[in-house]
């Protein structure tokens, strides 16, 4: 029953920078416009986020990309047609935190952590599909990524990589949004081994 997840200390990892990685959409409007266009073409968007963990002082820390001073996000992206979710997670985490020559096996996709749905072409997302909604516009799936004992992260220059302790995220939707703020609850089912 227990899902064992090994967490290594932050100090095991090294960090470098790489060329900036820009969002596909420049504004919120264009983001939802593209979502809508895509929806009309290919239906509901399948997004995946990677939950990459380390530990400090025996407390899990979630690696978050910081943009500006107040915005944080998980490595995330859209699963392509014909691509499996796990493949999508590996590709996206590697695009975000790896380099071309980083083996994809660095990022072991361990388990589903949470599901979120976007019922409209708007920002609200919920961890369930509202009952009146038969056609959600986006399904976001969060996956736990098991790191190797040591590796190097390559962080796009336009982001800062931070390791957020779970207590910082817990009950803090105002600071991190509901998806990230829900991670402490989502992750509580795992049995973390602090190495």
């Amino acid at each position, binding site marked *: 029953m227990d899902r064992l997840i090994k967490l290594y200390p932050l100090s095991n990892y090294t960090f470098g*920078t790489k060329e900036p990685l820009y969002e596909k959409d420049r504004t919120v409007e264009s983001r939802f416009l593209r979502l809508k266009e895509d929806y009309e073409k290919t239906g509901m968007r399948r997004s995946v986020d990677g939950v990459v963990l380390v530990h400090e002082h025996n407390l899990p820390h979630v690696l978050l990309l910081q943009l*500006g001073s*107040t915005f944080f996000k998980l490595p995330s992206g859209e699963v392509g047609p014909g691509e499996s979710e796990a493949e999508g997670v590996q590709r996206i985490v590697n695009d975000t935190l790896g380099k071309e020559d980083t083996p994809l096996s660095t990022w072991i996709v361990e388990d589903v952590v949470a599901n979120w749905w976007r019922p409209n072409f*708007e920002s609200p997302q919920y961890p369930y599909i509202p009952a*009146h909604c038969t056609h959600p516009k986006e399904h976001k799936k969060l996956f736990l990524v098991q790191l190797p004992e040591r590796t190097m992260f390559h962080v796009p220059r336009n982001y800062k990589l931070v390791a957020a302790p779970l207590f910082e995220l817990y009950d803090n939707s105002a*600071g991190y949004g509901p998806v990230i703020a829900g991670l402490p609850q989502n992750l509580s089912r795992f049995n973390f081994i602090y190495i």
Partner: protein
Amino acid sequence: MATESVSDEWMYNEVLDDDMPEVSGMNRRVSIDSTDLLDDVLTFPASGGGNGSKTEVDTEEEVDLNLHFTTDTENGLAGIEDSRSARYNAEQVAKTVQARIESNKTSQSIGGTHSRSIYMRDPNKKNSVFIGNLTWWTTDMDVLSAVREAGLGEVKSLKFYDNRTNGQSKGFTMVELTSEAVALGAPDKLQMITVHGRKLVAAYAGRMSVAQFEAKSSGKAVPDKQPLVGNKPQTSLTGKNPPLYPRPPLASVMGGLPPPILPPTLVPPELPFNPAFPAAALPRPPPLPPAAFDPSALAAAAALNSQKPGGAHLNPAFLQDQMMQGNNVAEIFAKAFQGPTSRPSDEEIADANQRNRAISSSAISRAMSDANAGDYESAIETLKMAITLIKQSITAGSESCQILIQSLVDCLRGVEHQASGSK
């Protein structure tokens, strides 16, 4: 938004330095513009109710923004766009409506602004109708087939009004039909249709409809925390004299003490979540009490709403009350109080009566002064709003209420007569 960003920034500088090991990254600052991309966090404070003091104007802007229409597609569904309306809780609606009655600024009223946005955003609003009295689980597909059943053909677009906080449908939608000709008379046809055991309520998309549907939904779209079978019925919690402003479960949980038994459905439809930063550090204040609706009335009506014959989670305490074919809220409320478990106290009745009298007299006096000033439209609107309000009160079925409503209707007729004479 600007001020929120500033305060967040300040907070984060503090927080990050202390708690969050910075593991990499050169650019501490990225232009604020780029953060706009990432609305999930940034819009959250706004959607949480803006420090508990979110104003009407903000929420209306939100409605305004959401009035997009899409075109139909082959399966008729890609065009469906749900909408989120402003976050009203019962208290806010009541306040707005009261203010509407009492203040003299017609154009800034809730009805006025909503309709303005509708008129401005959607020149084809004549094609659109509002459909209400839906359960929260009535789907877009259900509405489409109801429209078809009513012989109104295809739907060009459809948007649900829902509670932004939790995504729950408020029980009404705006439906754009194929033409004005089809829309003409559509409400009458739609009102003949029953969906999930409820008769539809429909209206032309016009000045008053959003406000009216909002008011109705705030009176009944209580989070349906259905008591599990076997739990004590809520009357054991509220007792003979239910607290006027019960603390909702969420607030009590936040306060550190889980509620001993989940008080079902006593929560206002939208919990005024406090997004004020730092959320984690401050205990959240209890939500504001619903002003215009008695909480026990809410509870009773919600209990009725959430019961469906044959449904899975039936509280036996309410089985006997589940006849709710009525198509207006007043009726549902009136029925709720025939139940042995949810009779309002004398105090509550007196309270409601007093409130209704106040609403009635201030509406009439204001309507008269508007009418005398030649503003018949505003006078009519005021009176209609007052009638709606009184019809939704817990004593709607009582004789005194009927008298009040009758006098308002008389007054309304008089004004309408005057108005037609003046043209």
